[in-house]
């Protein structure tokens, strides 16, 4: 099981039956693979569909049905097509139960930076600021470090995406819960020690007596 699969499987455990969930492009989009259909979850693509499905069969792609990354998708039975105002009305109005987003940095305040690297990458925030501000629950799914640098930092050096404290960080090494007191280490990846996590984390972690291993079974069926 590679690092990304581990993260996706663990995030899938957070998804509750019958909820509305938005998955960011990249790593977060893999989460859908581990959510059983029996859960009755609807995935939203913010470009305008509730009930996003898997990739279409080869040769059956429709250019009127894509996800927020522009890739061909399908729609599940019971899907609804919506315009951008309704789509972000759902997000901003608190109707979206969960969003799973990638991250460049998360800091000890729980602030996420994921939209800009000044001077290097200025793609625009797309829907990220609305998602982090409005979703009932925000989960950051990312690699613990990039190019040897911890992505969990004392204070974001990159521009933040919102003032809102994210609810959970899931990485290939650990599950961390930002709280009023700081970053609480909740779980570790199988075979990874607390010391290894602390060592790989630039931010201060609050380490409780017991840190269980992640459950990687995927979404609860």
């Amino acid at each position: 099981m590679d690092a990304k699969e581990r993260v996706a499987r663990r995030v899938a455990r957070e998804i509750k039956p019958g909820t509305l969930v938005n998955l960011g492009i990249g790593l977060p989009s893999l989460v859908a693979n581990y959510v059983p259909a029996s859960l009755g979850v609807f995935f939203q693509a913010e470009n305008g569909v509730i009930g996003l499905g898997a990739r279409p069969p080869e040769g059956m792609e429709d250019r009127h049905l894509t996800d927020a990354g522009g890739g061909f998708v399908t729609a599940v039975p019971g899907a609804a097509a919506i315009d951008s105002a309704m789509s972000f009305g759902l997000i901003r109005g608190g109707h979206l139960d969960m969003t799973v987003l990638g991250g460049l940095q998360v800091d000890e305040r729980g602030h996420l930076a994921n939209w800009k690297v000044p001077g290097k990458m200025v793609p625009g925030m797309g829907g990220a600021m609305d998602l982090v501000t409005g979703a009932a629950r925000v989960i950051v799914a990312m690699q613990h470090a990039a190019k040897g640098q911890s992505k969990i930092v004392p204070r974001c050096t990159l521009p933040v995406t919102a003032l809102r404290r994210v609810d959970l960080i899931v990485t290939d090494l650990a599950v961390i819960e930002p709280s009023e007191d700081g970053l609480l280490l909740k779980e570790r990846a199988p075979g990874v020690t607390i010391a290894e996590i602390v060592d790989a984390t630039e931010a201060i972690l609050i380490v409780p007596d017991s840190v269980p291993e992640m459950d990687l079974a995927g979404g609860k069926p």
Partner: protein
Amino acid sequence: MKGALKPEAAAELIGEGASLLVGGFMAVGSPERLIDAIVARGTKNLTIIANDTAMPGRGIGKLISAGLVRHVIASHIGLNPETQAKMIAGELTCELVPQGTLVERIRAGGVGLGGVLTQTGLGTEVEQGKPTIELGGKRWLIEAPITADFALLGAWQADYVGNLNYMLTAQNFNPIMALAGQTVIAEPESIVPVGVIAPDAVRTPGVLVDHLLIRAS
């Protein structure tokens, strides 16, 4: 969507003093069976937010006649003499809101906006006591968002996951109110299998709907 409820079970969810957004325009598009169940249960001290209070014997008019309503937020009560009589008698209070402002305030509440900046009502009684702001060289009235404990909707079709559509002018406030109720209960005229309402025909996504009323027997 949590499933289909009998009208009595739906009415039981609604406690005394609850605030209710009720769809419909002169009772067209109002959830009549749900309203009947509330009247039967006799839930008092309700706040009703709706375009109007219909007329005696129809839609919201039945709640008014039964004396269950303490406060009304509406754009028009002129066709229900009982609402006016009870207001004059001090049995209920009434906030009158321009219709376009009303629907936009409900939308703002439903989509997480902090208020509505409109010119409607400027220089009239509607402005009294409200903040205004100068933007883009014009003065705007700031109207507050509206949400409620419940949204009670009348719909045309629902499918098993709660997707709704509406028929002609029975649509009116319903799809906007679907965004702004803490709990959303929809009374469709028919309930059809998933797939019967095509994605582009859905006007209210099922994710907004908590309960459907079961089919009329």
